[in-house]
């Protein structure tokens, strides 16, 4: 019989704790220990990651900055990565990705959230975040990170709330006593929109190798004025051709910087992270590609429910009633938007479970099947 009893007590407190934990898991089957521990305190969970908000501050009118202490399963992150943050709103768990702004050294997380117009999660956090609030967290993900060893010259470019991952890189480099040259070039509408302005100025004063350049697009008075231009690169970081550049911000900024680096043959040295909201799907003809990541199959969206499209593509996903009642064909949609054929409801969020038989892709969709 497959009873999971610890085979023998291993020496050491750690081994004993682990044996006790596996005994507890066996006793608390099938629900598992977290489902009981969370009833005492949501932060006691062992496997899941949660974070409790310990401090809240508002740097600008439309942002909120949270300090979060993660639960014990958190294993840390690399500067530039993002985490999935979940909150329950009207009974539904909503998840969004945010890049921590803090240094990767240290056990806490700092998140800065900009309240987007009609933003469900960002608006909720902006209005309701308070010390004691518990958030759902994921392990970190993302390839937008600094290499090891660190490059000697680093150019960090950000626009608006795109500051978050590159600020984390900057703070990490500072913590590590980085000896090379770092330029931090940030674009904001006005001085009032600059996040972490005072801290950036202070950091620049303390570290001779660091130069902070603030560019205002909608007013004068900054170090630079206006949107990105190639000439600005030569002005603020004349060595940018020998540097590694990390860029995060709105799409127009990304596009113009990419074009500049591309035209100089420097694309390899430019690393970017996009924070574009999912496109609002338009009604009408089927368009886009459907990708089944598990099998690696990709087809043009025919406008039929995903189950039929998968079968048309030669796949045989598990299914049952084919009318939305039995949930046999539920799979995780990793990206893109689908429309529920029964209710017409759109589901634009990433990493949600959908029923293939009644979900019609709207544009590009990626399914873990």
């Amino acid at each position, binding site marked *: *019989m*497959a*009873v*999971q*009893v610890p085979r023998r007590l291993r020496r050491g407190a750690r081994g004993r704790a682990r044996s006790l934990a596996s*005994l507890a898991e*066996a*006793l608390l*089957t*099938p*629900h598992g220990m977290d*489902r*009981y521990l969370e*009833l005492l305190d949501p932060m006691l969970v062992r496997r899941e990651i949660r974070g409790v908000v310990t401090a809240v501050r508002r740097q600008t009118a439309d942002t909120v900055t949270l300090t979060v202490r993660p639960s014990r399963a958190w294993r840390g992150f690399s500067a530039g990565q993002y985490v999935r943050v979940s909150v*329950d709103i*009207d*009974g*539904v*768990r*909503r*998840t969004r990705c945010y890049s921590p702004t803090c240094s990767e050294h240290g056990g806490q997380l700092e998140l800065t959230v900009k309240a987007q117009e009609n933003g469900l999660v960002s608006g909720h956090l902006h209005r309701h975040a308070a010390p004691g609030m518990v958030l759902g967290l994921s392990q970190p993900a993302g390839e937008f990170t600094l290499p090891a060893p660190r490059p000697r010259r680093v150019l960090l470019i950000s626009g608006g709330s795109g500051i978050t991952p590159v600020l984390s890189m900057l703070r990490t480099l500072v913590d590590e006593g980085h000896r090379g040259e770092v330029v931090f070039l940030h674009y904001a509408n006005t001085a009032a929109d600059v996040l972490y302005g005072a801290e950036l100025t202070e950091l620049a004063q303390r570290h001779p190798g660091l130069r902070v350049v603030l560019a205002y697009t909608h007013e004068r008075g900054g170090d630079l004025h206006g949107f990105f231009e190639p000439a600005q690169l030569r002005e603020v970081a004349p060595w940018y051709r020998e540097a590694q550049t990390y860029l995060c911000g709105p799409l127009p900024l990304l596009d113009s910087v990419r074009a500049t680096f591309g035209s100089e043959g420097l694309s390899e040295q430019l690393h970017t992270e996009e924070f574009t909201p999912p496109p609002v799907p338009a009604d009408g003809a089927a368009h886009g590609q459907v990708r089944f990541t598990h099998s690696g199959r990709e087809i043009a969206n025919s406008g039929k429910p995903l189950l039929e499209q998968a079968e048309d593509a030669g796949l045989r996903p598990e299914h*049952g*009633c084919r*009318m*939305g*009642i*039995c*949930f*046999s064909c*539920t799979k995780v949609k990793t990206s893109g938007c689908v429309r529920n054929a029964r*209710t017409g409801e759109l589901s634009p969020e990433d990493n*949600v*479970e959908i*029923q293939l038989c009644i979900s019609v892709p709207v544009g590009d969709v990626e399914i873990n099947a």
Partner: protein
Amino acid sequence: MTGLQDRLTPEQVEAFGREMDELRQRIVADLGKEDVDYIQNLIRTQRALEVVGRGLLFAGFFPPAWIAGVGALSLSKILDNMEIGHNVMHGQYDWTRIPELSSQRFEWDTLAPAENWRHSHNYVHHTYTNVLDKDRDIGYGILRMDEGQKWHPYYLGNPVYATLLAIFFQWGVMLHDLEVEKVLKGERKVSELKEVRARILRKAGRQLGKDYLLFPALTGPLAPLTFLGNATANLTRNLWAFAIIFCGHFPADVESFTEEETENETRGQWYLRQILGSANIEGGKLFHILSGNLSHQIEHHLFPDIPARRYPEIAGEVRAICAKYGLPYHAGPLRKQLASVAKKIVKLALPGGRSEPSPEPEPATVKRERELTAA
């Protein structure tokens, strides 16, 4: 026998189906925090009952503690299986996107692994409700529960098999997923069921391990009492689940269908079959919760993925729609439904049924339609 499709005219079926769709849409649009709070509170109650029940069995030498412990543990298992497990695994809370409430991840406190059961119950039973030779819940491959099942001397034991199934219900549900009768008939190969079998061994091992090895062992000298206590809790849950589930589809006036009748069903016809093939049990609020709202079997079969706490609220409306279309709405108190099921089990032990055709009354709805046309 009245054909399923003769009850209503095609136009009526369509209009009836539309009304059901509208009802569903209205409830789905209204789902929110209250529904999540309800199920999470219920889960908290179940977990508390379980911890208290297990705890009391450590004092099982004191008879009142043993009895209270078994009571709490029985209630915990009933809530876990009925109002929580059954309903969560139907996808009733998938819209919340909360992993603990996801139909794909939930696992319940019974021998049958969730994944096997989701196939045999959510898909097979709910798609082919009361269709002979398709709905494997009819008799669970053991009993003769319908006159359409050909009689065989084996069925003389019907009442005995039913009693044994009630006592060992969680084993019955577990083995049900192996589709033994299909393997015997040569419709399925044993090799096709490798995964199902592996899941059963894994899950049953864990379940039996905790109830009959680990918890008894932890209570030391009280091990036999704890063992007995856990077995009693499992038995209580088994009897209760059997009673509720058999009253949902097998009281006398509930109908069954042939495969031919249900070919190329429209959505409206599917709804119609769910109503004719299910029966409700009347009772109070606590009774409904303990039955997992399967006391509202009709509403559950119409809308298996709507949170069960909503069934009482829509039952009146469903009943009114049935009345409007001249459809039966089978309902009765538990003792009446139980008696009716017991009678059927005994009656069907003996030969009878299709071999003695009885004159069928003309369905009321078709007659009324004709009268209306004539008027």
